[in-house]
């Protein structure tokens, strides 16, 4: 300890200088502010994802000691026809969960957007309703509607189409479409709501200008409404596609994947493999593949919507 005791005034001045320097130059300072949020995100989103990826390299029943199998689980996914079929089913669901709701949403927006009417808020509220109902309740309700004596069959009978009636969810040809239509019902409202609120920020004078130039409703929609909805379209596509690919609750409640494997989706298999069949590693691998598929598609959607602007 050869140094003399520090002079208090001098020390304080040093600190001030150091502080000023840090404010001016350190590139790390910003990260400190992000740290709390990042720590939470890392602990609850990134780590579990990494852990899932790590588990996918094992053959593990969830209880006893796991065996390292490397990429074996991934190889099994590629070979297993049921797993491949489930991915195909999920892609079919994209049509019903994403494509149809977006088309319906655009249609209704095209009809409602041309004139400002009082009570738009009420429409939006109505369209939003299916979003408010828990998906399990939606599934149970639709299971009744699709049942042997359900409303769907009653309607067909009432109009004399007795030959068409069947237990829709138990029919090999109709089950996947029936499940898909439930998704259409749920997500159409979301799309309409998104587009309707998007349209409100369009300057009304643009519509007036288009009308003065002699544009009909279709021309108006294509030239004015649609370009302004690009952002909303990207959001709607992302949300609905993810809902289709990661679908679980509706399928689990209505058909549990049946009949046969007609409505089996990857989300259902992940759950089944992990919790009832004791194949945690395989489930994790399928979850990783599903996650990558979803990320890839979302990336593509974002790329497309950006490159057009």
């Amino acid at each position, binding site marked *: 300890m050869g140094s003399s005791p520090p002079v208090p005034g001098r020390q304080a001045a040093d600190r001030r200088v150091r502080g000023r320097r840090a404010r001016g130059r350190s590139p790390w300072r910003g990260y400190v502010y992000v740290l709390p949020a990042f720590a939470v995100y890392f602990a609850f989103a990134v780590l579990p994802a990494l852990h899932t990826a790590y588990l996918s390299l094992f053959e593990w029943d969830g*209880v006893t000691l*796991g065996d390292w199998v490397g990429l074996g689980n991934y190889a099994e996914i590629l070979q297993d026809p049921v797993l491949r079929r489930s991915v195909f089913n999920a892609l079919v669901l994209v049509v019903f969960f994403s494509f149809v709701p977006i088309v319906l949403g655009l249609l209704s927006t095209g009809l409602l957007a041309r004139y400002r009417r009082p009570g738009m808020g009420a429409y939006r509220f109505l369209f939003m309703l299916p979003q408010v109902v828990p998906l399990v309740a939606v599934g149970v309700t639709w299971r009744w509607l699709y049942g042997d004596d359900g409303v769907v069959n009653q309607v067909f009978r009432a109009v004399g189409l007795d030959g068409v009636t069947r237990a829709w969810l138990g029919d090999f040809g109709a089950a996947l479409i029936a499940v898909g239509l439930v998704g259409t019902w749920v997500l159409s409202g979301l799309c309409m709501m998104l587009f309707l609120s998007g349209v409100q920020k369009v300057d009304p004078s643009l519509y007036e200008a288009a009308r003065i130039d002699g544009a009909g409703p279709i021309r108006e929609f294509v030239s004015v409404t649609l370009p302004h909805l690009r952002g909303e379209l990207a959001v709607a596509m992302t949300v609905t596609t993810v809902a289709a690919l990661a679908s679980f609750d509706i399928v689990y409640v209505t058909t*549990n994947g049946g009949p046969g494997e007609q409505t089996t989706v990857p989300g259902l298999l992940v759950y089944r493999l992990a919790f*009832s*069949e004791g*194949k945690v590693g395989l489930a994790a691998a399928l979850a990783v593949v599903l996650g990558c598929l979803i990320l890839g598609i979302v990336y593509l959607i974002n790329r497309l919507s950006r490159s057009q602007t």
Partner: protein
Amino acid sequence: MRDSTHRVRRRVAAAVCAVALVLPLAACEALTPGSATAVPGPTSVPSSTAVPDGDVTLRLQFADAPLMVDALIAAFEEKHPGIEVEPQYKTFSDYVQNLKLTMTSDTAPDIAQYAVGMTDLAADGHVLDLAPYREAYGWDEAVPPVSLDQLTAGRTSEATGGRALFGVPAGLSMTGIYYNRELARRAGIDSPPRTLAEFEEQLAAAKEADLTPLGVGALDSGGLHLWAALLNQLMPTDEYWDWVNGRKGATMENPAAVEASELMVEWGRKGYYSESANGTAQVDSTARFAEGDSVFLINGNWAAGQLAAVMGDGVGFFPMPGERAGSPTVASGFSVSYAVSSLTEHPEAAGVFLDFLTSPEAGQIIGDNGFLPPNPDAVGKPAGVLADIARGHRRAVADDGITTFPDFAAPAMLDRLRSGVQKLIADRIGPAEYLDSLQDEWEDHHGK
């Protein structure tokens, strides 16, 4: 003393878990999944059967027959005021799918209903071997040994050296065919069939009379009950048991299984099943049968209470008949049984509760709720369809013909069976392909 070591071990397990989560990629042996699951406590119950002093609370998690469980608990608590049993009901699929997680967690219930997956849990020491109690309480006299032998998980007891025991049955179950007397008369059917061929004739007669012959709830497990019922008649029982127990070399790809599966397809082609079988859950198929929708219904004795209440004497029951009139009665069935977690702090109290299940008083409650009491002689004579079932069950027990359900062969078997049978019913798959998918799953779990 044991409590505190428990707590320490649990804390250690939790700490290991936390480390495994925080450092997932720093590869070392402790991070192999499963290494953090410490086997907690002893693997077997103490042999003392003393009723514990002081107030004790037992948590009981179960999935079947909530009314029966409530009644049993009420009767038990009246007899043993110091022991409170807290029921936790879960729906069956929830229960089975979460069983492993539940029983390996720190908060495992003291007592849990025995279900698929218990074999693995028993092997890892998460449920207690009850063999010492089997002798101490004399369960062999109170319960038919065949029912206890379904609960050994194929293991030998470390405590007694005899067969292990991982559950005590409350109610027994069995599948078979219900028939609507009124509709059967209309189709010209006047008595239950004595052979499988005769049953087929009756199905044809019902079809002829423009009635729906057979109600099947194949959306969940009704279809596989039918398949198993046919298999029971055509496949030697020993071979079936070998397959379900995972004995080396057993196979489902055999001529008898092909025949049973072909029969399923053929009945579908002939229009014997209710039209929407694949879209109907078992409960719904029962309700529709009660409304007079079909002449016959495949289901288990668990539906009897409901059917007797609605149809009274208008409903009868018979086990699926064999190939010849003299064939032994073989039916699938299991028991609603309860296992004890190795984490429980009150194994003695759990033993007192399990022993109560074998008492005549409990037997009466079990019988009243449509289940077959383990000891039929201890209870009053049932009437109506319940009597039909009791008679059928007695015959099957006498013929050593109670087999477990085929989904006990492997954890993933239920899904293979359900979706496979749906395809058989819809004529979408050949028997060979179907059996191949079952055997694949079997080999996946048990090895070749």
